[in-house]
């Protein structure tokens, strides 16, 4: 029986028509009568003691139902270190930290209430940088750091300091590495904080029903973690918590952190469980909710005169802001992949998470990998230049390959890592490298091309799990239910394609439950780390196996033959050597009825699950361990045109060649990689949360916080290599974050080449170039 392949074929996403017609429903579209609205009063200083809060006037304000402060049900939260009160108690640690929440009949009444609260602070010295935070006798942001409970037992906060964690990689023999090196190159970097800027700002509704059910409606990448954390922090029986997540309007890691959910729950509990909605404005989203880490780094690399890298020493300081959230885990990511996709035998890396009085942080597309990629890729260009080597040659020469060891001493295989050399070679072609990487035009401008390789692994918990449940309709079509939130890349459709491929049926006949409801949806750890295709994909293949077994079992009875002789395709079960003998799914899904009318078997429900296996924590002193099952590698390039006359530039091209293992949905894959490059160019050229000396955020609105806008994009090129990952569904690797990771480094490499000055700080604006070239003083001729 013939069937058409369902993967490797561009497939319109299941929710496409709803999205393009505006019919798609996001969390804020869920408008219900009798919903109260909450607004947050935020801290106006970055560090200080709360001397007093007067809520009297707000409580008496029209429409206000309740006002809660940090004294209301105090508790500490945090996925790695329990260091953050949802509402500041006694002390504020960043500008924008919630100090009180006003719950009112309407949003305007809640806002009016917020304006009536009077707070007095006793300012404390502000820790406005990593350097200040690490000084001896630095002001402590968390004086009780040594006493905090750490849900992640592999994190090591240092009491009486501002250090949240310290990850070490000690691989090989550094003395040997340096002694074998003919040249040594050093470098530093600084990458600022930036924001996610998902189109849909964070928003949550909560209610507590009279029967004790806590309903949380939230725009989240981690609905199951919301349930688990609310259980742990507020001792609500987990089964009483139901988290509902419809389509999510972009997330980029920012909605992996649990933030407004705590506030909405507390707010609802303060008004007898009535439904309370809390929605960030854009300014709230930038200021109150967590953003991307900032990082400082110092690197040193040694190589032979032939360009073989012998040693790498690097130190990264990760600015986690006021609360750790996933900061330490990102610092760990930076350490475990600090070498980039290169074989380096001797590595000494320290990655240190530091508290400051900046806004706190969480994952942002790439999970720290942008930092180590920037570090190593800038360093490689400097090394290549010193050795008078081509940037491609030095990368290909050192490209990691089967049998090498990762910084955590994990064995590299083609299957678990893919083929970076193939990516580089293809990139060289698509960027027309042979014409040169620096071209002077007749107009007096200079066109340059910069490249960067990258690799990324997931760094997920050692027990992350995922489940799938399949039910069937009377027409033999399948309902697919799993717990990943559809945050934009079309993964609900990807998983449907994988199921359709295994079931040898048309993806049109697979119906996806688009939302997540933690009571009826099987758990998926979190929709993060580019792991959905891998984890849910494996779970759905297991579910398909279960379904096929059940269908064959009952089909064998119906067709009066051995199950071993049966095969499935096109929603039919047929006898392998006699395809004309078959029975359709529709005649089996609710049991099989004999011609006599007697029925057997009953409704078919299939299930499948997946758990990450074989992962181990890293050794505290050497970093040895297995933190992931696989990497994805890619090579990226940026082409710019620089005008030396007025120090300005424009973007011409950005390219990515990624080893996707297997491309499931080609246009969707292109889209996600392209979107990633767009974000990368934003980080490279303009995105920057600017704090003043008192750690007050200066650009908290889109008037002043700039991102790459539509129409400013260069030409995008996306290409794929397909080296299958054996344990992944049809070989497919994660590709969701990778488009972002190497672009800033490739851009900085192109820029450094064009300008003739090394750029080790982002973002690079025209003014930055002018300052670098002229010293920032204007001499009028």
């Amino acid at each position, binding site marked *: 029986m013939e069937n058409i392949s369902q993967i490797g074929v561009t497939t319109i996403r299941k929710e496409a028509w709803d999205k393009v017609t505006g019919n798609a429903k996001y969390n804020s579209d869920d408008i219900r009568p009798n919903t109260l609205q909450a607004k947050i009063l935020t801290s106006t200083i970055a560090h200080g003691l709360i001397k007093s809060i007067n809520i009297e006037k707000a409580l008496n304000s029209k429409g206000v139902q309740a006002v809660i402060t940090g004294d209301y049900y105090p508790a500490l939260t945090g996925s790695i270190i329990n260091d953050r009160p949802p509402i500041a108690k006694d002390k504020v640690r960043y500008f924008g930290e919630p100090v009180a929440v006003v719950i009112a009949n309407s*949003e*305007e009444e809640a*806002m*009016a209430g917020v*304006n009536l609260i009077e707070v007095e602070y006793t300012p404390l010295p502000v820790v406005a940088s990593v350097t200040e935070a690490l000084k001896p006798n630095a002001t402590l942001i968390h004086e009780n750091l040594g006493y905090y409970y750490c849900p992640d037992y592999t994190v090591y906060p240092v009491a009486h300091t501002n250090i949240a964690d310290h990850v070490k990689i000690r691989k090989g023999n550094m003395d040997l590495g340096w002694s074998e090196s003919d040249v040594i190159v050093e470098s530093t970097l600084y990458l600022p904080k930036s924001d996610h800027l998902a189109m849909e700002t964070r928003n949550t509704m909560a209610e507590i029903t009279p029967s004790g059910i806590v309903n949380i409606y939230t725009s989240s990448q981690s609905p199951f973690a919301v349930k688990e954390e609310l259980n742990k922090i507020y001792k609500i029986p987990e089964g009483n918590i139901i988290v509902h997540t419809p389509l999510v309007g972009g997330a980029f890691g920012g909605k992996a952190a649990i933030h407004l959910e705590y506030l909405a729950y507390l707010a609802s509990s303060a008004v007898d469980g009535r439904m309370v909605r809390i929605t960030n*404005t854009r*300014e709230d989203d930038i200021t109150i909710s967590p953003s991307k880490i900032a990082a400082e780094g110092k690197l040193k690399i040694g190589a032979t005169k032939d360009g073989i890298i012998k040693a790498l020493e690097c130190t990264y300081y990760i600015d986690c802001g006021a609360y750790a959230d996933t900061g330490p885990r990102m610092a760990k990511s930076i350490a475990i992949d600090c070498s980039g996709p290169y074989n380096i035998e001797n590595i000494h890396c320290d990655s240190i998470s530091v508290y400051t009085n900046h806004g706190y942080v969480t994952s942002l597309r790439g999970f720290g990998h942008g930092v180590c990629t920037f570090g190593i890729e800038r360093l490689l260009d400097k090394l290549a230049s010193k050795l008078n080597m081509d940037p491609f040659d030095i990368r290909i020469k050192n490209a990691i390959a089967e049998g090498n060891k990762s910084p955590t001493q994990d064995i590299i295989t083609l299957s678990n890592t893919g083929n970076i050399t193939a990516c580089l070679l293809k990139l060289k072609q698509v960027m027309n490298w042979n014409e040169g990487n620096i071209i002077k035009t007749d107009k007096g401008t200079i066109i340059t091309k910069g490249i960067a390789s990258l690799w990324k692994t997931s760094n997920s918990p050692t027990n992350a799990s995922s489940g799938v449940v399949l039910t069937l309709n009377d027409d033999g079509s399948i309902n697919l239910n799993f717990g990943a939130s559809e945050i934009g890349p079309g993964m609900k459709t990807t998983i449907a394609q994988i199921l359709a491929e295994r079931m040898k049926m048309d993806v049109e006949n697979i119906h996806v439950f688009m939302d997540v409801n933690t009571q009826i949806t099987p758990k998926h750890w979190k929709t993060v780390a580019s792991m959905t295709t891998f984890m849910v994909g494996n779970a759905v293949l297991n579910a398909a196996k279960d379904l096929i077994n059940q269908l064959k079992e009952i089909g064998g009875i119906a067709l009066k033959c051995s199950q071993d002789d049966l095969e499935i395709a096109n929603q039919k079960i047929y006898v392998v050597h006699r395809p004309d003998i078959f029975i359709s799914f529709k005649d089996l899904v609710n049991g099989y009825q004999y011609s006599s009318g007697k029925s057997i078997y009953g409704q078919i429900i299939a299930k499948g699950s997946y758990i990450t296996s074989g992962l181990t924590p890293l050794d505290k002193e050497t970093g040895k361990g297995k933190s992931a099952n696989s990497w994805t590698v890619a090579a990226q390039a940026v082409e710019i045109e620089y005008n030396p*006359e*007025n120090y300005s530039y424009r973007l011409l091209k950005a390219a990515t060649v990624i080893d996707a293992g297997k491309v499931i949905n080609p246009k969707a894959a292109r889209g996600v990689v392209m979107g990633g490059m767009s974000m990368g160019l934003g980080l490279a*050229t*303009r995105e920057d949360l*600017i704090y003043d000396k008192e750690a007050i955020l*200066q*650009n908290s*609105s889109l*008037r*002043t916080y*700039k991102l790459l*806008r539509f*129409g*400013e994009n260069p030409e995008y090129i996306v290409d794929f290599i397909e080296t299958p990952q054996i344990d992944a569904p049809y070989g497919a690797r994660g590709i969701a974050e990778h488009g972002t990771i190497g672009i800033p480094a490739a851009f900085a490499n192109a820029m450094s080449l064009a300008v003739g000055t090394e750029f080790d700080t982002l973002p690079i*604006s*025209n*003014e930055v170039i*002018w*300052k670098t070239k*002229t010293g*920032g*003083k*204007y001499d*009028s*001729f």
Partner: protein
Amino acid sequence: MIAFDFEYYKPDTVEDAVKLYNKLNSNGKKPIYYGGGTEFISMARMNNRYTEAVIDIKGIPECNVHEIKNNKLIMGSAITLTDISEANYFPLLGYIVRRIADHTIQDKITLGGNLMGTIIYRESILALLLSNCDIVLQGSKGKRVVPISDICDKKIGIEDDEILIQVIVDERFLSLPYLHVKRTKHEKIDYPLITMAAIKDKNRTLISFSGLCEYPFRSLKIEEILNDSSLSKKEKIKKVIESITDKILHDIGGSSEYRKFMLGDILSRAFDKFQEVG
């Protein structure tokens, strides 16, 4: 979401609008005249602007005039930047307004709003300063028509209850050689680091700037330097920059030193361009 309530009025005549203003003002409502609302709405939601009554002037016929009559271009204050751009009677002004905000907002921002707003750039004034347009105003003390140069010192200064009804530009200016250069931190559409507008009138270069200082301006002193044929190009630029005695903007958009550099660069290009025009 705007946290406070305010009343909304849309009078049909200037007289009614002015009367309303004074009545609401005496009732302590802190009224404001309202055009497209882009500034008021975006600032009120952040508690940066407060009023208890807005008086929408878009229903007043005189404020919606947009025509050339008796050798004069008449532009009502309620016409939008999109209107200006599409009719394009005054190409220099057309260029300027097409670089203010994105298209959706250009459809809303009115000429009056851009001229009278609190956001400091007010770029459409650049073309009006160069053509020394007449401004038609009306308040409780009556109607008056004044050259913009008489009332514009850093911003257009008018009585609280006065409505800016129209702007009248001598048709002669519409076809003069002109130049418009806008530099921003990154984007095509953004607040300016510097916007420069210039026209060449009878061999004299007239020039105005936004983004350089905390207000848009035309400086006769700068024009004198530029039109001094005894000075070389380099000398002119040096003197122009030295002649700016007020504080040059220094903010997260760009440093004052960088703005100075940018000014030199823009002027240098302007000379070359105008030389081409002849």
